[in-house]
C-alpha cells in the first residue's frame, strides 16, 4: 500500500519530466524514420523489408511479454496464418489487390488469436507458455496436412500485384516504402496502446494480477484484448512478409519461429518499445551473415548460445542496458 502511494507521488512530480522525455522520444523517432526512409539507397531493400517484417512481429510479441507479462510460445501460428491466407488468396484470385490480401490475412490471424486467447488465458505463467506452444503445434500439423498450403513445398510465386490497383509493387523500392508504412502504423498502434489507460491496466496486471482484480478490473478481458491485438499484428507481419518474398512456407509455422521471436525480443530488450526492433535487426542480420559463411550449419547453436548468454548476463537486453546506462550517467 505505502509503496503504491509513494509511486503515485513520484508520478505527479515526474509529469513535467515525462512530457519532456516524450518530446525527446518523438524527435528521436523522427530521426529514425528519416534514416529508414534513406536506408534503401544504401542497404539492399529486400533485406531491410525482412528486418521490418520481423521487427513488427517482435513488437507484436513484446506487447504481450513486455507489457502484460504473458510468454506466448505460439506466435508462429499467427505469422504463418497471416502468410498462408494472404498467399492463398492472392494466388487463387488474380484480381485481388495486395492490401485486400493483407487485410484478409490479418483478419484470419486475429480470429485465430481470439480462439487461442480464449483457451490460453484460462491458465497462467508457465502453463500459458505450454498451452500456446501446443496450440501452435496443432496449427502447424493442420498446415502440414492441408492441401491449400501445398505441404512441404509451400506456396511459391505469389504475385505482389498493384497496391490499390494502381501502384506496382514489383519494384523493390516501392514495396519497401509500403512495408515501412505498415511497420510505422503497427509500431504506432502498439505505442498508443501501451501509453493508454488500457495499457496502464496491462502493466498493472503484469506487476500484480491479484491486486488489479481487486481494484475491479476484469483482468481476463484485458489479457484477451492484448492477446488479440498481438496476434493481429503478428498476422499482419506474416501477410506482408509473404508478399515481399512471394512465398509462404511451413518454416513460419514451426515452433522454431516462435522461439526466434522470443529471442529477438529478449535480446533487444523486453518491455522496451524499440528493443524488439533492434533485436529483430540483430538476429536477421546475424542469420544472414552466418548463412553465407562457413558457420551456416551452426546458426541454431549460436542462436541458442545467445539465448543462454542473454538470460544469464543480459536480461534487460540491448535497449534495456543502454537505458540503464543513460539513466546512471546522464540524469
Amino acid at each position: 500500500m505505502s509503496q503504491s502511494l509513494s509511486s503515485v507521488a513520484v508520478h505527479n512530480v515526474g509529469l513535467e519530466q515525462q512530457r519532456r522525455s516524450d518530446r525527446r522520444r518523438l524527435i528521436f523517432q523522427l530521426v529514425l524514420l528519416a534514416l529508414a526512409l534513406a536506408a534503401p539507397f544504401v542497404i539492399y531493400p529486400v533485406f531491410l523489408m525482412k528486418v521490418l517484417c520481423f521487427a513488427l512481429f517482435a513488437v507484436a510479441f513484446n506487447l504481450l511479454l513486455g507489457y502484460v507479462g504473458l510468454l506466448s510460445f505460439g506466435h508462429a501460428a499467427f505469422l504463418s496464418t497471416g502468410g498462408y491466407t494472404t498467399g492463398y488468396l492472392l494466388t487463387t484470385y488474380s484480381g485481388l489487390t495486395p492490401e485486400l490480401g493483407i487485410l484478409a490475412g490479418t483478419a484470419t490471424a486475429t480470429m485465430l488469436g481470439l480462439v487461442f486467447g480464449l483457451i490460453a488465458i484460462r491458465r497462467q505463467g508457465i502453463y500459458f507458455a505450454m498451452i500456446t506452444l501446443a496450440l501452435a503445434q496443432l496449427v502447424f500439423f493442420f498446415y502440414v496436412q492441408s492441401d491449400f498450403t501445398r505441404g512441404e513445398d509451400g506456396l511459391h510465386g505469389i504475385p505482389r500485384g498493384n497496391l490499390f490497383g494502381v501502384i506496382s509493387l514489383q519494384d523493390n523500392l516501392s514495396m519497401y516504402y509500403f512495408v515501412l508504412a505498415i511497420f510505422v502504423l503497427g509500431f504506432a498502434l502498439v505505442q498508443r496502446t501501451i501509453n493508454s489507460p488500457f495499457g496502464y491496466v496491462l502493466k498493472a496486471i503484469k506487476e500484480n494480477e491479484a491486486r488489479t482484480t481487486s481494484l475491479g478490473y476484469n483482468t481476463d478481458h484485458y489479457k484477451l484484448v492484448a492477446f488479440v491485438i498481438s496476434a493481429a499484428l503478428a498476422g499482419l507481419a506474416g501477410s506482408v512478409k509473404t508478399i515481399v518474398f512471394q512465398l509462404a512456407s511451413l518454416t513460419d509455422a514451426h515452433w522454431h519461429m516462435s522461439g526466434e521471436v522470443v529471442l529477438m525480443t529478449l535480446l533487444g530488450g523486453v518491455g522496451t518499445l524499440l528493443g524488439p526492433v533492434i533485436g529483430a535487426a540483430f538476429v536477421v542480420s546475424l542469420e544472414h551473415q552466418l548463412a553465407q559463411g562457413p558457420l551456416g550449419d551452426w546458426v541454431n547453436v549460436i542462436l541458442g548460445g545467445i539465448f543462454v548468454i542473454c538470460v544469464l548476463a543480459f536480461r534487460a537486453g540491448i535497449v534495456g542496458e543502454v537505458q540503464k546506462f543513460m539513466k546512471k550517467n546522464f540524469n
Partner: protein
Amino acid sequence: MTMLFGVPLAVLYGQLLLGLINGAFYALLSLGLAVIFGLLKIINFAHGALYMLGALCAVVLLNTLGVNYWVALILSPVLVGIFGIFLERFLLRRIAHEDHIYSLLLTFGIALVIQGVFTNIYGVSGMRYPIPEALRGGVNLGFMFLPYYRAWVIVAALVVCFGTWFMIEKTKLGSYLRAGTENAKLMQAFGINVPLLVTLTYGFGVMLAAFAGVLAAPIYSVSPVMGANLLIVVFAVVVIGGMGSIIGAVLTGLGMGIIEGLTKVFYPEASSTVIFLVMVVVLLLRPAGLFGKEA
C-alpha cells in the same frame, strides 16, 4: 477375422499396444517434468533434448565401447544425469531467484544448443539401435502378436514410474522433496540443504528423461531431433493432467497414448493432433487439468 466397427481386431490391438508404448514415454517424460517443476517451479524445455541425449549416449556407448543395452540402460541415464546436475549447478542456479520465465527461456536456449551441436555431428537422419538379444522375437497371444521388447518397455516404464512414486510418497528423502515443494524457505530454516536437494531433483528428472531415451532407442530411430516434437506433445499431456500428482502424470500419459493409438485406427488424419484437441477440451471444461488442484 473378427471386426469391430469395420476394423480388424488384430489391427486395433496392435495400435492399442503402440499407443500404450507411446503412453509409457509420455508418462516417463511428464513425470520427470512434474518432479522438476515441484521443487524448481520451472518447466524444463531441455527435457526433449536430454531424452535425445539418453538415446544417443546409448548408441555411442555401443558403437565405440561395445557397451551392451543393459549396462547402457543404467550408465546412460547416470551420465546424462550428471550433465543435468552441471546444468543446474552452473546455469539454472544463477537465475533461480529471477522470474521463472527466464529459467524457462534458459532451458529453451540450452535445448537449442544441445540439439544443434548433435545435429552437426550426427545429421538428422536416424541411427539404428539393435534390440537386445534376450528380448528379440515375441509371443502370439492368440488375438495379437506381442513383441517381447515392446512388452518390456511398458513393464520397465511402469516399474520406474511406480518406484518414483514410492520414493516420493513413502521415503524420508521423498518427504523432504514434498516439504520443499510446499515451502522451500521454511525447510531450509529447519536445516535441510535445499540447494543440494534442488540439484539432485533436477538430476533425477533428467535421468528419467535419459532412461526413456534409452528405452526408446531400439524402437524409434535415434536422431538429434527425436526429442523436440515429442516434448511439445508431452507439454500438452502435462497441461491435460495438471502437475498436481505423480499418479496423475502416469495415468494421463498412458491414457493419452491409448487415445492416440485409437485415433490412428479410426481416423488416422487426426492422430498427430488428437492430444492437442483433448488439451483444448480439458482446458475449457476443467482448466486446472484432470488431476490438478484448482488455483
